[in-house]
């Protein structure tokens, strides 16, 4: 594989990711002992024993919010609204502050209402900005995000400087602290989660259609604005319930990252949503666990890093869309193409001589494929490795095995059939077809080839007059020795 800037960057990126993760785990392991007097193991055991009520609340809350964010985040992702999620999650901050000011204490309902109103106001402003000015959507999103957040920070610092401010616990809302979740918080989260599941289940097909093609949904009679605004409302709810555990700044990560991970793992939306929910729950639980290990560590960042870790795993190893799989299958494909082109060249050389001899020298192959001698020798060795040819020592030539001959004939047949199809059925001029056929021949499946044959009435010659090997010829050679192809110009002809 040629080394290009792109491959360098990929490798660099991959190494960086690995480095980041290795360093993180080292860092954490090293620090735990210094922060707490209890050892890491004891803390971990304490976690899993679930004896601590605040721990039970923290874990339940983390799992609930992971689930909800994963579910709604999937729709955000496929609708390309990732940054809208980010904007709404920042825009709720003034609402949270207002909720605090309502009763001068941490009142879950007041905070919920305030934050939801702020979030809705934010998304409303974005729409109005793009509708009434020439500002583009990303600028409008950025401004609402920063503007509302700035107002929020202003209010938060004001609250913190009040005499009663230090007890308010509002600073926990910036980066999240799952340990501060109480029973009433968990109840609220549970209600919102159940509501989300119910509405998504009930209106799944509306959400699917509006997300995929809003114009069509409108045409089919779906209440598109209701679906959209209802979704935004649900989103605001889920952002608000996630705030206390994840923090304002990082909620959007919990919306997007598990959904992105499951986007790489699935090809159907309903499966993607389910996987995203599961991944969200796992990330939430892991985050709660890690932040529990160290005193007073904020939970949000750990949840996000867990979700990111899962994302990296999917990015690299996902079965169809992962980077490693794509690289591997591309490599395999280009190897196959290389081998088949060599076989084809060998066949052409033999055909030129009317199959009167059995071997093809490296030199002839190099000339025919316009390669260097070394390159052609290497291709021949590759054929030998795959069992398609033998290279007797001492001779600089190659002899096709029966399997190799069969393969060569198949590939030539595909190429010539395709050329014939293009010229006859699709009316391409004969001098244009060779390159197309070069590409297509490697991927034609058996059933397509059969269809081609039927359509072309089992023709025996390609547009350039060369014979098209028929299946019978190919099969019969398989049993015969390595020499002599009966057919071609001697015409085995069509099946009866």
């Amino acid at each position, binding site marked *: 594989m040629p080394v290009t800037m792109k491959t360098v960057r990929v490798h660099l990126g991959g190494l960086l990711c690995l480095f980041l993760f290795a360093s993180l785990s080292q860092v954490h392991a090293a620090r735990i002992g210094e922060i707490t007097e209890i050892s890491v193991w004891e803390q971990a055991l304490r976690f899993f024993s679930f004896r601590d009520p605040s721990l039970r609340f923290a874990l339940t809350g983390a799992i609930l919010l992971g689930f909800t964010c994963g579910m709604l985040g999937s729709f955000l992702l496929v609708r*390309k609204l990732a940054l809208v999620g980010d904007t709404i999650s920042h825009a709720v901050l003034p609402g949270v502050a207002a909720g605090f000011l309502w009763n001068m204490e941490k009142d879950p309902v007041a905070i919920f209402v305030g934050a939801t109103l702020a979030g809705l106001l934010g998304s409303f402003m974005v729409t109005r900005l793009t509708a009434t000015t020439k500002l583009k959507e990303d600028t409008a999103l950025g401004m609402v995000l920063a503007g509302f957040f700035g107002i929020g920070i202003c209010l938060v610092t004001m609250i913190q400087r009040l005499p009663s401010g230090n007890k308010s616990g509002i600073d926990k809302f910036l980066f999240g602290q799952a340990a501060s979740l109480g029973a009433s918080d968990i109840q609220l989260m549970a209600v919102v989660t159940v509501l989300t599941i119910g509405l998504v289940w009930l209106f799944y097909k509306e959400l699917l259609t509006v997300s*995929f093609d809003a114009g069509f949904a409108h*045409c*089919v*009679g779906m209440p598109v604005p209701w679906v959209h605004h209802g979704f935004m409302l649900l989103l605001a709810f889920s952002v608000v319930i996630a705030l206390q555990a994840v923090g304002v700044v990082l909620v959007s990560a919990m919306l997007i990252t598990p959904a992105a991970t499951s986007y790489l793992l699935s*090809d159907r939306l309903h499966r993607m949503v389910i996987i995203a929910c599961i991944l969200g729950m796992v990330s939430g639980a892991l985050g709660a666990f890690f932040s529990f290990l160290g005193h007073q560590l904020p939970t949000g960042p750990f949840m996000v890093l867990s979700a990111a870790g899962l994302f990296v795993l999917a990015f690299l190893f996902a079965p169809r869309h992962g980077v490693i799989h794509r690289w591997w299958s591309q490599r395999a494909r280009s190897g196959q193409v290389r081998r088949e082109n060599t076989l084809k060249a060998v066949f052409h050389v033999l055909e030129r001589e009317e199959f009167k001899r059995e071997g093809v020298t490296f030199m002839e192959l190099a000339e025919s494929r316009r390669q260097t001698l070394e390159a052609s020798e290497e291709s021949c060795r590759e054929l030998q490795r795959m069992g398609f040819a033998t290279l007797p020592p001492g001779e600089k030539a190659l002899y096709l095995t029966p399997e190799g001959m069969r393969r060569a004939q198949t590939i030539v047949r595909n190429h010539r059939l395709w050329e014939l199809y293009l010229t006859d059925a699709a009316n391409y001029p004969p001098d244009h077809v060779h390159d197309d056929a070069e590409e297509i021949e490697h991927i034609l499946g058996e059933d397509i080839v059969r269809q081609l044959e039927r359509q072309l009435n089992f023709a025996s010659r390609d547009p350039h007059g060369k014979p098209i090997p028929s299946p019978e010829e190919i099969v019969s050679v398989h049993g015969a020795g390595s020499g002599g192809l009966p057919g071609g110009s001697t015409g085995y002809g069509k099946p009866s």
Partner: protein
Amino acid sequence: MPGREGENEIITCMNQPHISLSDHARTDAWTKGLSDAEVPLEVHDLTVAYHHKPVLYGIDLRMPPGKLIGIIGPNGAGKSTLIKAIMGLIPTDSGWVRLFGEPNKKNLRRVGYVPQRESVDWDFPVNVMDVVLMGRYGKLGLFKRPKKQDRDIACACLEKVKMMPYADRQIANLSGGQQQRVFLARALAQESDLYLMDEPFAGVDAATESSIISLLHELRKQGKTILVVHHDLPTARNYFDMLVLLNMRLVDFGPTEEVFTYDKLQKTYGGRLTILSEVADAVRQTKS
């Protein structure tokens, strides 16, 4: 961008008389004797502007049922905008649209819509069958799920466009022609009376194009009305019964033989018709 001569011709074109309210008789000509409910599409004085720059200006149309109608005009002429305005997808500055006698928003369920291929994200995690089933959602209403009968209809529509073997394939793994056929199957599944199609032949191979046309002929035989935004002038003459010539204003509307003339095409395309001189020649030859 037109050159100097082109610009002058365009200015002349813009000042040419177009079909206005006074020519109402001609607009009405193709729907004489039909009640409002039988007229699939009626557009009156439709104007659509974007920040005060007009995209469509004063469009009047009354379409007869059971015809295959093409909308042609240069780029930027408002063809796609017209389709979107008919469906109520974009706000209009004046005028109204009636579908089968009712205001368009009321009767949308009788319209089948095939959008441009670019309007959709083909990486969306759905397969071919999912997309075609969406065509049935309109009939289902809010809380119902598709039943076996809906699936059967979807399969039948896939068979009609010869995409049944691909039913399980994720839509990103389809060629351009296949994607277009999936959209078509979705519209067929809606079982509509009026079909609106936005450039269905763009970027599609010859075989798909001819199969789409034969499908449209079949629909026409069933009495459906089909309105197609078309980009290719030479084929427009062969494919459609009637043509709408559009360049922000309506230049003309009528049967293809009457409307596809050099003068009218010149008015529609302005100076840029010089590129299509071979078509112009062909047209002139058929007239002589």
